[in-house]
């Protein structure tokens, strides 16, 4: 077992996930983390930091700790080389409204910028062909890249709130790509502004870390951690605890970094990047707050440094070749034997099951058809029992208060009944499973389980059904896996529907037959669709969620049109189709009048909110002036012994204070509204981008950005429609 080479107690609370380390004077590593009371502390055991004053103050309790007043909730923190390397690392602190780049050594701001989308995640480094390093700030649906001057040469949008960011050379071209994890469960790889790849996960992506080569680790909000090599997931594990921090560090000294995970229950483990096997673990008394590496002992080597929320810090050193084997459990031979015996034991048990089965079968005494009770000690069903499954769309019923849904029909082939069904699937239930367990007296051999997938993603359903007889204590478990097609929540319309206003049209150099194949595989259809006599295709669906129609048309020349009022759905369809047909680039003509109107209205509201904000700020400045005067007057009165006026002045001060507080509340609300509007704008741009594929997609996004900067709503509308300004 590896023991920490140093432990410290900082006596500071640390907010989980807000930990970084920086060499602010180019030489000494300082652990930096966000603590209570909106402060950031810098632990500098090696050298006193220069100047206090300004933002910086020394901690009263410990000489090694300096505190930075941020006065806003710290939402992300990181340190890295942003200016020139000889100046040391710059500390970048993100809050819900601002981003601060701070030169710790000189106690001065490098820049302080408003980011209206907030800063949920920050990373510093070189991105793509940008010469100078950038501080990349992930906010609500948008990503800003600031250089040391505070300019933002990089900007793009993504599907949902960014929850994690990292830089890594994903495609091996010696240029860094940006990996973005967001709350819509996706990990996106950005090369410059363009999305190179998208990987769908099953929960919000809370952390990403680059590993060896194009490998990277990820963590999800549901307690999953894992490792991807490019687009393929090598392994993942799920725990009931949450991964707070992940980091890659070569702890066993074999030249390949392991994935180090810090858990909410205080556990730290290091897992082999290839197999996910635990090679090392340790326990903190409280939740792990962060993991970094740095040369904290000034011996020229980097240690792995783990911190807990209570301020406990432990440093670990990679094991050398000699000590490596002692780290392995000395009982390797014991373990091997135990594992082998366990396997033998399991095989023997299974064999016993088959033997018993045959013995009973050949004896002919036992009959099936009755429940197996405690006295029987055996569960019997007919050998040829089969479980049949089917997926279908159920339009629901008004009186039973059941909305339209997809259902799985399960049926056994004889008199056995289905006691219960457990469906394990990710992303479509609240937890990871859904249980169907009817009352004892209403058991049948034929059941239907309703499903309501909230998103259009293909889902693997792992179905376990318990088959036996009524009143039994023992059931046979039938396990099978079915895939739910991506667009299963759209029912085929046989009657004519009114064509929706919104539409996208484009031309594909493909055969209609392949489009038909795509439709057959992505929608839940009772029988396969065929192209009509002329070789064209027209098919209409009804969304089970919103009850809105969707029409897909293709003429024999493969001019395609998709009619729907839901721009997001159109985007999903196009992305899925582009994926299916391996399209490099796709430009479309889009027309979503309602969406565009809405965007106009939102932009107008954004403007209003901005105005309100300015007005409120001015008011606040006024008030603070008045406060100063009131305080002075009241104190004067007190010194003069004029209690009556003092009371009066303080009374006024009190009223003013109340005004300020209510003003603050309005400001908060205003800010919330503003945020949600900006998010909508970003999402609309993202949706407009998703209507295209490849280069066209990137150019739409940057053109939209330009239009918004110039507040040119007309241009924006045009870009969304045609794809170019």
């Amino acid at each position, binding site marked *: 077992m590896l023991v920490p080479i140093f432990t410290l107690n900082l006596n500071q609370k640390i907010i989980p996930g807000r930990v970084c380390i920086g060499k602010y004077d180019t030489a000494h590593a300082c652990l930096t983390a966000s603590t209570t009371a909106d402060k950031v502390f810098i632990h500098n055991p090696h050298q006193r930091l220069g100047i206090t004053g300004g933002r910086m103050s020394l901690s*009263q309790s410990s000489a090694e700790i300096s505190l930075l007043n941020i006065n806003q909730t710290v939402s992300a923190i990181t340190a890295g080389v942003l200016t020139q390397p000889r100046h040391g690392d710059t500390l970048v602190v993100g809050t819900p409204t601002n981003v601060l780049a701070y030169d710790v050594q000189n106690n001065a701001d490098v820049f302080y910028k408003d980011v209206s989308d907030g800063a949920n995640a920050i990373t510093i480094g070189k991105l793509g062909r940008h010469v100078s390093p950038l501080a990349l700030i992930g906010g609500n649906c948008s990503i800003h890249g600031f250089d040391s001057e505070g300019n933002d040469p990089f900007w793009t949008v993504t599907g949902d709130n960014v929850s994690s960011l990292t830089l890594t050379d994903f495609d091996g071209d010696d240029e860094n790509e940006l990996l973005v994890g967001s709350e819509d469960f996706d990990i996106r790889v950005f090369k410059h502004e363009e999305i190179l790849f998208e990987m769908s996960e099953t929960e919000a992506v809370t952390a990403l870390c680059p590993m060896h080569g194009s490998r990277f680790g990820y963590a999800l909000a549901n307690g999953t951690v894992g490792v991807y090599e490019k687009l393929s997931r090598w392994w993942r594990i799920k725990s009931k605890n949450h991964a707070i921090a992940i980091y890659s560090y070569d702890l066993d000294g074999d030249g390949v970094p392991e994935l180090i995970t810090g858990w909410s229950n205080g556990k730290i483990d290091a897992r082999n990047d290839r197999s996910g096997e635990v090679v090392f673990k340790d326990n903190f008394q409280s939740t792990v707050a962060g993991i970094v590496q740095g040369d904290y002992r000034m011996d020229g080597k980097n240690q792995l440094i783990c911190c807990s929320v209570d301020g406990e810090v432990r440093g670990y050193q990679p094991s050398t070749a000699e000590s490596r084997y002692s780290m392995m459990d000395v009982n390797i031979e014991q373990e091997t034997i*135990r594992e082998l015996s366990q*396997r*033998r034991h399991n095989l023997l048990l299974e064999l016993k099951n088959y033997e018993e089965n045959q013995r009973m079968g050949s004896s002919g005494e036992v009959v099936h058809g009755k429940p197996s009770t405690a006295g029987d000690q055996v569960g019997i069903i007919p050998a040829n029992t089969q479980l049949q499954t089917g997926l279908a769309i159920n339009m629901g019923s008004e009186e039973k208060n059941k909305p339209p849904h997809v259902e799985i029909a399960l049926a056994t082939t004889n008199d056995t009944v289905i006691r219960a069904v457990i469906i394990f699937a990710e992303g479509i239930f609240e937890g990871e*499973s859904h249980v169907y367990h009817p009352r004892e007296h209403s058991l049948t051999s034929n059941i239907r389980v309703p499903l309501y997938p909230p998103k259009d993603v293909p889902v693997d359903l792992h179905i376990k059904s318990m088959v036996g007889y009524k009143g039994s204590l023992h059931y046979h478990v039938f396990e099978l896996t079915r895939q739910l097609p991506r667009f299963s929540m759209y029912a085929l319309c046989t009657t004519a529907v009114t064509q929706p206003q919104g539409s996208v049209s484009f031309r594909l150099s493909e055969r209609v037959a392949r489009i038909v194949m795509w439709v057959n595989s992505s929608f839940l259809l009772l029988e396969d669709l065929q192209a009509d006599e002329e070789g064209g295709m027209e098919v209409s669906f009804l969304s089970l969620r919103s009850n809105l129609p969707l029409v897909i048309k293709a003429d024999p020349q493969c001019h395609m049109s998709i009619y729907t009022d839901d721009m997001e759905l159109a985007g999903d369809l196009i992305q899925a189709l582009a994926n299916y047909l391996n399209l490099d680039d796709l430009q479309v003509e889009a027309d979503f009048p309602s969406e565009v109107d809405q965007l106009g209205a939102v932009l107008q509201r954004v403007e209003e909110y901005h105005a309100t904000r300015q007005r409120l700020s001015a008011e606040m400045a006024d008030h603070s002036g008045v406060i100063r005067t009131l305080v002075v007057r009241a104190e004067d009165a007190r010194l003069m012994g004029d209690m009556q006026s003092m009371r009066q002045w303080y009374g006024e001060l009190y009223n003013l204070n109340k005004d300020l507080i209510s003003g603050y509340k309005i400001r908060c609300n205003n800010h919330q509204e503003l945020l949600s509007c900006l998010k909508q704008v970003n999402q609309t741009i993202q949706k407009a981008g998703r209507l295209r594929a490849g280069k066209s997609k990137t150019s739409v996004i940057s053109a939209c950005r330009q239009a918004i900067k110039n507040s040119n709503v007309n241009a924006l509308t045009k870009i969304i429609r045609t794809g170019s300004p």
Partner: protein
Amino acid sequence: MELSLTRVDYLQVGLTSPRCLRVLPSSTPKTQQKVVVGDQDGTVQLFSMKRGEVQNSFTTTSPKAITRLELGGALGTVKDKVFVSSGNEVRGYTKKGKQFLGFDTNLTEEIKSMYISGSDLLVCGDYVYNHYHDCQDSNYFLAADRINDIISLPAEKMKSLVPVLACEDRLLRVMKDSEVLYSVELPAPPTSLQLFYNDGGENGDQLLYGTSDGKIGLVQLGRGSAVHRWVSEGGSGTSGRVGGVTCMDHHDLTGDGVRELVVGREDGQLEVLAYEDGEEAPPTLRFSMSCSESVTAVQGAVVGNTGYDEVVASTYTGWVFGVTSEPMDRHLSSESGVVQISQDSKQKIQRLRDEIDDLQQRVLKERDQYQAATQSTFPGISAVPFFSVNDKMSLSRNDASYLLSLEVQTAIDNVLLQSDVPIDLLDVEKNSAVVSYSTCDPESGNFLLATYRCQANTTRLEVRIRTIEGQYGTLQAYITPRLQPKCCQVRQYKIKPLSLHSRVHSFDSTRPYNTLVLRGQFTLPEIHAWVVFCLPELPERTPATTQAEFTFISTFLDTQLHCVYSAGEAIFKSDNISTISILKDVLTKEATRKKVRLDISCEVSEDSVVHALHLLHPRLEAQLMLAKQVSLIEALRELGCHEADTSFLSPEYQHILDNADSLQAQYRKQPCHLERLYGMITDLYIDKFKFKGVNVKSQVPHLLEILDNYGSLSIQHLVNFFQA
């Protein structure tokens, strides 16, 4: 001094029942001893270890599971005869494997526990105790509740036979012939007995007991009464909850001439505790190890290698292993950095591998055959035998919640918990399983549907459950192991109407009581069945006496319930009116269902309500205080990080700041405690007026308002509201 011990596996047998492993004594100290183990497949084997290899001395089989294995011999000689109980038979073997005794006890129940003292054989079934002297039936006793263990004080020191029964109703029954001499009340149901220091101490009258909630205690059994010496809560103290004690032994592992206590627990903990003050004080923990499945037997001995003391233990799934003081790394050569595996082990591993390959082939063939049968039209059957499940659901007095533990002989794949009553599942720190709650449609009669997906190699799952008194029904667990062909087994647990009550043996008659009297045409078995339906910790069997008397205490409130019933009449007394109200509702319903006419009379004591409120008051106050303190912690900490010196704070705040972590831990440990108390008070209020025939549901919001402001009001305020 910390002990450093390492685990060495010896072999795997079938599932083992508790205490079916013993080590034969050796004539010279520190030489290798032989181990005898019996399993549920009926196999008894005696083995020794020779250079890491198992050497079998003898193996016998019988059709029935071995339920207990003891050593015996004539008094004053070495105990090296092996006695096993199986079904209702007791057999004896010499250490050479020769059977010298085959004795059919003719008991109606299967033997569950057994003890041998010279030529006296003591056996117990579930409820009966029988004493045979030279195989002649001498004494017989029928206990009121399940017998968990039996022992007799050392005959050499006591000059007479003093058997002691450990019973589920929290009593040690000290026997004299066929009568109970006296009984000793314990804090929890005893599960295991062991003579103190293996010899009963100086006078042979000291007895250790282990309980189902993990306590270990020492009692001194005198001629007419017993003295409690100490009780140890047990465990390393970090998790706060320890597993029940299954087995104990004493052995000198440290080599200091004093024997240590070795304890095996249900939750897989194996502990070594040292007596630092002899018999005067509880021992202190020196070593603890987790083996992730129940430990069924422990004994100190020398088995693996001459000269090294160790603890030999067996687990539920049949692993027999040693926890030895022998340093393990001496097999390894550290210079090369390569782990050297000895030639013997290599061969052993290779043999195992070959065997597995062979088995794999056979299994594949059988699997295909089985699959083929499912396709054929020939009307065959698919019969899969039950897998063994070792399950237990027990009420813990400390936090008024249930602990459900499930243990299977092979790795668990998933467990589905379904309940038709509202219950809450609480997280158990030890579990690694991923829990997922499924939405429940009340129409389908489900109030809880939760799946536990277990990680690889999990054979044991623990779930903590919080019940609500008055709501009763069934909790079902569908357990699916990772064994082909995939099957699942259903286990059912009754959630009783008064689920948070637990048995005691003393009744405080000075409290103000409400009385419920039932009269009607019912027999004792009938009324007993109804009471069992309502209350936990009662024997299923109808008491043999004409009148039954039981006392219970509410684990949450400490109110009492006293039940006295016989054929035709039943009297229930409780100082909590809600308890009486629940009993009345449930019993009426049950009687109506059975079509028995009942004459019910209720006597409500006004004082009891005030009394119950006074019982609630300190708890409520403590909880409110705790909640307040916890809410202040963050703010105080912020102050603390600004100021170097916090001495300007008031003592109260300083106290909070100093104990912040323990306060938070305490707060986390009792989630929803306040809500539960509020619920109790509301029930009390509604029930009080229900007996008067007044519906006060509309007043409840008013009551809750008072409770929300309780911190600033006095108890009198609440009492006034109740009496208004």
